[in-house]
C-alpha cells in the first residue's frame, strides 16, 4: 500500500487518480500508523514551502517522515515534496526537513517568467543501472510537466541524476538511497509520467 501523505496542501487528488488508473493500491492519509505501515511514501507537490513545513509540523508528520526515510522506505517527493527534503528554502526563508543537504533557490533571471509553468525536457546524466531502470521506456530528453518558482541545489552533486534548463541548468531529479525526488510532476506528465511512476514502483 502506497501512502500519499496528506499535509493539507497540494494536488493529492491528481496523484491518487494516476495511481488508481495504474491499478496501484494507495491511500491519502496523515495517519502516523498508516504511514508506518505503508510500503512506500509519496510526498506530493503544489504549495508554498513555508506553509508546507508548518502543516507538516502541525500534524507531527515531519518527524515520522524523517524516521521512515532513514529506515529505508521507498520515498518519492514531487515538486514541493522534493524541496521540503532540503535544509532550507528561500521561499519564506524556512528551515525544511534537512534530509538532503542544500538550498532551495528562486529562479533569478529577469528574462524568464517565474514560475516556470509548462513542459520541459529532462536530461538524464547518470548511467547507473538503477537509474536506467527508473527511465526504462522513457527516451532521454523526454518532456515532463513543471510548475515551479524555486529549484533545488543539493550540496552533494552526486545525487543529481537529471537536469533541466530554465535560464540555468537545475536539478530536476535526484536519487539518494531510497529517496527519489522530482521537480517535475510525473502524475501530470501524460503517458511518459505514468511510465515513470511504474518504473519507480518497480525500483
Amino acid at each position: 500500500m502506497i501512502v500519499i501523505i496528506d499535509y493539507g496542501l497540494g494536488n493529492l487528488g491528481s496523484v491518487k487518480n494516476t495511481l488508481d488508473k495504474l491499478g496501484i493500491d494507495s491511500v491519502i492519509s496523515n495517519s502516523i500508523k498508516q504511514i508506518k505501515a505503508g510500503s512506500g511514501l509519496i510526498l506530493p507537490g503544489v504549495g508554498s514551502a513555508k506553509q508546507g513545513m508548518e502543516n507538516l509540523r502541525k500534524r507531527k508528520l515531519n518527524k515520522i517522515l524523517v524516521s521512515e526515510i532513514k529506515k529505508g522506505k521507498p520515498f518519492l517527493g514531487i515538486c514541493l515534496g522534493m524541496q521540503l527534503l532540503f535544509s532550507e528554502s528561500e521561499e519564506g526563508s524556512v528551515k525544511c526537513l534537512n534530509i538532503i543537504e542544500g538550498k532551495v533557490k528562486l529562479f533569478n533571471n529577469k528574462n524568464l517568467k517565474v514560475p516556470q509553468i509548462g513542459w520541459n525536457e529532462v536530461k538524464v546524466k547518470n548511467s547507473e543501472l538503477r537509474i536506467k531502470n527508473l527511465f526504462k521506456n522513457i527516451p532521454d530528453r523526454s518532456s515532463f510537466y513543471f510548475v515551479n518558482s524555486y529549484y533545488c541545489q543539493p550540496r552533494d552533486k552526486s545525487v543529481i541524476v537529471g537536469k533541466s534548463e530554465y535560464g540555468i541548468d537545475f536539478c530536476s531529479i535526484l536519487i539518494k538511497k531510497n529517496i527519489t525526488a522530482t521537480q517535475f510532476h510525473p502524475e501530470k506528465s501524460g503517458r511518459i509520467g505514468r511510465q515513470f511512476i511504474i518504473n519507480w514502483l518497480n525500483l
Partner: protein
Amino acid sequence: MTEGKVVKGIQFVNFRDAGDPVALAKEYDKQGADELVFLDITATTENRNILLDVVSRTAKNVSIPFSVGGGIRTVEDMRLVLENGADKVAVNTGAFNKPSLITECANYFGRQCVVLSLDARQVRKNRWNVFINGGTTDTGVSAIEWAKKAVSLGAGEILLTSIDTDGMKKGFNIELTKIISKNVNVPIIASGGAGKIEDFFEIFEKGKADAALAASLFHFGELTIKQVKNYLRNKNIPVRI
C-alpha cells in the same frame, strides 16, 4: 461549462452545446493537449459554487495539467477544487471584488497554483477594461493595471480572454495579449478567437503569448491538437509532440 455541459459562446453569449466534459477531456488528453482549462462560466452569475462532481470526474480521466475556475470566492473554495483533482485554480470576479483573495490563495497553495482569469474588452483605442460577472460588468479598471496588480498580489499565471475576439474565429487578440505580456512577468495563456491554424503561430510570434487556448476549433472537430502542434513545430515554435 454550464449546467454540467460544455458550451461555447460568441463574445460570452449565445452558448452552443459542445458535449460532455468528461468525454471531451479524455479525448483531448489522448490527442496530446498540454493542458486543460475548465471554467464553470455561470457559477458567479448564478451565485453558486462550482460543480465539484464534474471537476472530480473530469480530473479522474486526465493525466495532464488541469486548471479549474468559476465562482471561486474563498480559500476554502479553492481548497475544495484542488482536493477534487484540479492542479491550478482560476480566480476572476471573486478576486476582483476582493484582491486579497489572490494573496491568501498564493500564500497557502503557492503562486503557481493561482491563475488570474482576466476577461478584457476594448473600450476605446489602446484601452481595454476588465469585465467581471461572466463578462457582463465593465469594472472601468484597465486590464493592464489589474494584470500588474494581480501579479504583484501573487497570481502565477494569467488566462487572458479577449471578449472582443471570443468565438469570432478571426484570430486571437494580438494587440491585447502583447501589451499584457509585456507588462507582467508571468506566463500568459491567450484565449479567444482561434479560427485557423495560422492564428496559433501569430499569437506566439506577434502576441508574445506563452500558451494558446482554443475551444470551439477542437470541440467541433475543425482542427486536431496534433495538426496544430505539427504546424507550430514546423514553424520553429517549441512544442511537445
